[in-house]
């Protein structure tokens, strides 16, 4: 299961990365570059490639030269403690390593760092000629906000049409949305299955399943749908057989309430489950709350795009919105996934999350949920090494009596 996934992921991830970090890329398919996430269905339906500069920077931090990219970012004179994924993205951009896109789209979502990256992209001289469209993501969550952002997404389509010199094929967009809805449904089914004890699937699968459906070159393709179907089928089988993750004697189930980052999954999380039986059953990127895209009318379609973007994209849900929403999610995940503990990675770049830690701790205490705040840099292991994180989590599990000392 993991093999099939890894191959698809590696192929797609590489594809996306090569598309972005390659000034010589001569692909004739128009590229839309965003500072962060966007509704993938739209570029896919328009027959465009889409890339995300933040994700590019984040992926860069996982490379052997990751630290140099980060340090290169600092030397540009940006704010010195900014998220390292963004510093890396800034460096890629300013050193001319990014393929010139045909269109730029930026939003203020989901955090200040991504917002300031948008400023850099929009002011980048060599791209002054590239047509661009700038959107405002509201911090409110009501029908009016969805309509406000939905109207901007609709306007973005008109903008793309103008640049491409062709109209959106609305039937194609519906077709893509149907595929996207299928994938969301499969992810939700997979998420349901992951509630089983013992946990039937590796943490990577859930997180990267989400990434596959949103953040990769082959997103919203039938290929990904087929892979997700296979994941659900195999997981279902494991649940029926009462099987947990291969080679893991599950003792502790925990929630990792943030991004997993570029180094933690392959190192810390794998070691924790193998050596301590501590399994990350959910993280805040994998956690999916998606409602289907409403295809009843164009207006409804765009309002549901907006809702997905604002409320249901993982990092946007975390960074752009209220602590009450965030805490409500923690309590729901802990209950539904039968978590024994909450780990708050508290990524140093996450100002929005690090300013709500007391509220999270208080709620966990009131509800009898052990909670550990780490304070790591998810993009730079020079800050706190994987071994230190492992030791701290191990001590925490022992001290809370979740595993024997």
């Amino acid at each position, binding site marked *: 299961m993991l093999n099939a996934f890894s191959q698809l992921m590696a192929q797609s991830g590489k594809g996306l990365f090569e598309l972005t970090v390659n000034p010589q890329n001569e692909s004739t398919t128009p590229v839309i570059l965003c500072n962060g996430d966007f509704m993938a269905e739209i570029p896919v339906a328009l027959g465009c490639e889409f890339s995300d500069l933040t994700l590019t920077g984040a992926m860069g931090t996982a490379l052997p030269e990751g630290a140099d990219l980060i340090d290169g970012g600092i030397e540009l004179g940006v704010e010195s403690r900014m998220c390292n994924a963004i510093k890396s993205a800034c460096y890629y951009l300013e050193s001319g390593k990014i393929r010139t896109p045909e269109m730029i789209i930026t939003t203020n979502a989901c955090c200040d760092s991504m917002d300031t990256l948008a400023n850099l992209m929009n002011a980048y001289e060599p791209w002054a000629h590239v047509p661009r469209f700038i959107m405002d993501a509201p911090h409110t969550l009501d029908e009016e906000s969805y309509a406000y952002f939905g109207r901007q997404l609709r306007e973005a389509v008109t903008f793309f049409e103008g640049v491409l010199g062709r109209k959106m094929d609305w039937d194609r967009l519906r077709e893509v949305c149907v595929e996207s809805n299928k994938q969301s449904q499969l992810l939700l089914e997979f998420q349901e299955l992951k509630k089983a004890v013992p946990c039937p699937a590796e943490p990577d699968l859930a997180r990267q399943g989400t990434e596959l459906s949103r953040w990769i070159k082959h997103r919203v393709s039938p290929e990904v749908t087929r892979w997700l179907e296979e994941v659900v089928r195999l997981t279902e089988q494991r649940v029926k057989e009462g099987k947990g993750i291969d080679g893991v004697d599950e003792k502790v189930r925990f929630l990792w309430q943030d991004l997993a980052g570029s180094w933690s999954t392959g190192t810390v999380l794998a070691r924790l489950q193998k050596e301590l039986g501590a399994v990350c059953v959910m993280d805040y990127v994998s956690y999916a709350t998606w409602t289907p895209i409403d295809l009843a009318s164009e207006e409804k379609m765009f309002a549901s795009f907006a809702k997905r973007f604002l409320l249901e994209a993982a990092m946007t849900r975390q960074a752009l919105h209220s602590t009450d929403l965030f805490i409500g999610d923690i309590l729901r995940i802990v209950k539904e996934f039968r978590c024994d503990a909450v780990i708050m990675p508290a990524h140093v770049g996450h*100002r929005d999350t690090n300013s709500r830690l007391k509220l999270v701790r208080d709620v966990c205490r009131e509800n009898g949920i052990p909670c550990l705040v780490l304070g790591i840099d998810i993009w730079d292991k020079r800050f706190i090494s994987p071994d230190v994180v492992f030791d701290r989590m191990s001590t925490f599990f022992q001290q809370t009596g979740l595993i024997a000392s």
Partner: protein
Amino acid sequence: MSDSIRPAALKALLTAAASLRNPELDAWTSAGGRVIGYYCPFIPEELFLAGGFLPFRMRGTGSTDTDQADAFFDHLNCPFVRHSFDLALRGDYSFLQGLVVGTGCDHLRRIYDNALHAPLEASFVYLLDHPRTMGSEEEGAEPIVRYYREQLSKLKEALENHFGVAVTVPALRAAISLCNETRRLQRRLYDLSVAPAPKVSASERAAVMMAGASMPKERYNALLSEALKELETAPETPGKALARLMIVGPAIEDPAFYEVFEEQGAAIVVDDTCFGARTVQALVDEEAPDPLTALAKYQVVDMPFCPKIGGSHAHRLRFIQEMVARYRVDGVIAQGYVSCDAWGCSYALLREAMQEAGIPYLRVEREYIHSESGQLSTRIQAFLETTGGRG
């Protein structure tokens, strides 16, 4: 002008900024007047004035540490946010009945979340969402003005419902005209720095700007008008500054920071900071049929942009260059807090633009309370040499 001959009105304004409370504010609250604290210049004071409230700009004046706020905020959160929130937790803001927070940055927004759960006296806590883009080329700013107008209307309703007040159209018009008068007076205050030897120092100017959002507006306008009359007619100060500087970045509340520059013989003649020169450049349309739309338009279109506004770099640069020309600036100082991501990349952009324009540029990362002058003085000295004494 030496300190002993400073106009009494100016002294009163400086006193008002030196601490959170001031005699004018105390008189207002003793008479039963209500006060609303607010956190960002995007939030229009006019709305509070029209509801009969005194708008008070949140600051950290007098704070010495952030022990209490640090339970809520991480050490990498904005020091201004932590110091001002710390004062609120200690009860120093007990004179507030309400607190309105803007969505300007990630740190600020969490003040709202934390205030909801913290033991604060204010019974009204509100998050005002303001747009962070200039609008698209295709549709212009109209949709964002409309959106912000709706947000202001919701805030108005929330104030009315919570406090049982009516924010009427005539009251809004009166508040707009009162605040425009403040802007005109403050603009004259800035104009004093056009002279070779400015008649007010940067720390005094910043204090006067702060006082404007700390006391009843009518009283402030009267005091400022009186102070300006005396300052404008006073004889020119002899000599001239070693260099005329512009300061860019988040608001500076600690006068000690300006003083380090002044001690080196430099004059900070203008700024592009949150509550500084940006807020006195334009006026709200007093004749507009709908005052809420006029306020929304002022905030998201007419007031020069801060770097949090998407796509605004070229406009911001134009504003900075206009200020450089108008105030004959020799060098630009970009200051800010470590971890203020909202300004994150704009420093790199500014450095590049200043280099291209041949304007000396210095970047200073600072803390909220200015405590370390030695190293900064040395950097300023070196920097002043690069400005070549063009002042």
